[in-house]
């Protein structure tokens, strides 16, 4: 709120002590949310760090080194001016590989969230809107999916899928890993969307829309689903973090992105065998995972505060 607005409020209070309410210029929900988001220090720092990481990944091609071509003469160089992160056992520049690794991790993160949303939102909406036996069956499927020990199932699925010859998920591509992670990640979003539908379904305005003859699809997409946008956005943001963590973990175990394509996880796997002689191999890729995930988590936390409708309509000082 600007000074002049404050002044205006004060004047009213002085002129007439009976008037207790404040006059506030009309603001959209988005601008109120943005105001709140900006006040969350963690979220702002997180956004800046994440933007820098994304820019570095986008401009990774500017590096004078190639991420995959080996240069045996320069193997295991400690960090220096020419190689700020050092070089690996094949003489490849680790900074370059780390930046190309960001591309892999971030695209996996985005793809997983896209898969999660495209399965989770429709299933959650249908379960929540229709209820009854449809809901019952879908919920049991969700329970079953959540019951399987996740990391172990991901390993099995990855071991199987990377040998399979299916369209899109061919071999050991980024897409394969995204599909593997997507298979287990949609139930959380589905449950969230279902919960929104259950709370909103009985509201008066929904009944009114129904009485006006809105179709089921219109009811779901236009009347009810928008209520869930806040939580869905928060969950999707955090989902990017989970996906990056899981992808790194799988790659670290040798069931994710395979070399020579660099990914933070397989760089750490590679570092493991020479950990004691060449510790810098392990340090930087892990630091990148850590920085990315903590930024994403802080942004998610900021969004949760910013998009909470009760907080938006409350005081904005």
């Amino acid at each position, binding site marked *: 709120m600007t000074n002049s607005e404050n002044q205006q409020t004060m004047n009213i209070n002085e002129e007439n002590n009976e008037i207790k309410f404040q006059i506030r210029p009309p603001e959209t929900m988005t601008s109120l949310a943005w105001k709140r988001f900006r006040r969350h220090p*963690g979220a702002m720092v997180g956004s800046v760090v994440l933007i820098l990481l994304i820019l570095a990944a986008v401009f990774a091609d500017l590096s004078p080194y190639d991420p995959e071509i080996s240069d045996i003469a320069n193997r295991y160089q400690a960090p220096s001016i020419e190689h700020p992160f050092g070089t690996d056992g094949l003489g490849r520049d680790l900074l370059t590989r780390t930046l190309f690794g960001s591309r892999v991790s971030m695209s996996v993160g985005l793809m997983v969230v896209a898969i999660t949303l495209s399965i989770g939102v429709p299933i959650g909406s249908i379960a929540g809107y229709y209820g009854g036996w449809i809901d019952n069956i879908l919920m*049991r*499927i969700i*329970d*079953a999916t*959540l*019951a*399987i*020990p996740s*990391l*172990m*199932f991901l*390993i*099995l*699925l990855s*071991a*199987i899928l990377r*040998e*399979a*010859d299916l369209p899109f998920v061919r071999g050991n591509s980024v897409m394969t890993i995204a599909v593997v992670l997507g298979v287990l990640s949609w139930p959380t979003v589905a449950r969230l969307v279902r919960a929104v539908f259950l709370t909103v379904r009985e509201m008066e305005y929904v009944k009114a829309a129904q009485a006006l003859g809105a179709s089921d699809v219109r009811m779901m997409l236009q009347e009810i689903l928008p209520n869930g946008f806040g939580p869905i956005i928060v969950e999707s943001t955090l989902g990017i*973090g989970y996906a990056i*963590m899981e992808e*790194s*973990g799988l790659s*670290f*175990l*040798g*069931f994710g992105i395979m070399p020579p394509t660099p990914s933070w996880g397989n760089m*750490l796997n590679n*570092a*493991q065998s020479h*950990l*004691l002689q060449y*510790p810098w191999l*392990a*340090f930087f*890729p*892990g630091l990148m*995972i*850590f920085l990315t*995930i*903590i930024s994403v*988590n*802080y942004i998610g*936390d900021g969004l949760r505060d910013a998009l909470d409708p009760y907080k938006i309509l409350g005081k904005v000082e």
Partner: protein
Amino acid sequence: MGTYIIRRLLQAIPMLLLVSIVLFALVNIAPGGPMSAYSRSNRMPEEKKEAIRRSFGLDKPLPVQYIVWLIGNDWMEVDEDGDGVMDGYGSRRGILRGDFGFSYKSREPVLDLIADRLPNTAYLMFFTLLFTGIVAVPIGIVSAIKQYSTFDITATTLSFMGQAIPEFWLGLLLILIFYATLNNPFTGESLFPSGGMYTLGEDFSILDRAHHLFLPVLMGLVGWVAWYSRFLRSSMLEVINQDYIRTARAKGQTERKVLYRHALKNALIPLVTMFALDFPFIFTGSLYAELLFSWPGMGRLFYTAATGRDYPILLAILIIGAGIVVISNLFADIAYAYLDPRVRYD
């Protein structure tokens, strides 16, 4: 309550059947299927492969194989030695009767392999969870009572860091710090060992066990403490702001009694539920900790089986794991209803 438990258990049956069908189908639609463990070696003659297929019953149609896996084959004729001639009734009893088959690699019963490893995993996870509780509960309580204090802000920041740090990277860092860099000032050896459950060739001693337990527990602890302390903080905050706490204060109770007698009890209820949901880790363990610290547990058993495509082991661990998850979920709900009289199931 009784009918509720029975209904939940009945619901669990189709769910676990679904899980078993999905897992079984996955393993069998894999290119090469369960045989891929063998087909790697090209030298094996085709007849020999065929014999192995027959001896494992892999020549039967998939639904039959599934039924056999589920309820056994002691009711049908099988070809034990794979020579193409039926040798009489089978001896498998199926997973429903506790027979999870034999490892393709070692030919040992899967259940024996699991029984071998499970105590080691349970031992590691028990201490990880125990210390999680010991560290996380006080942090959560103090954070909530002194909301927005320096302590709370520090704890919150550390918790964000703890949740973002990849467990496997933390493990590598711990090895670098406590094994490679720091030395024991008295003996000059590494401060902590880099792996194993105990020093080979030495007599059992609690000190030696604890020495080996420290790093793997610490590695697992960080993420859990980060999560549990946040969880307890918000649960405690919610309780503190309720009317009955104000009533207790208004009656003139000491702040100490209000917090620890009245508030804490209720704040811990969601934590019990949380704990019940995390209980299955006692069975599946932490893959990363077991791999990094060469801990002979379930995680490593699974990992080795996955690299070697030893499908009976993979299926057994996944399906038992899923069963334990379902039971823990039920237990969490029952515990919740028992501890919080406001919750009623019908």
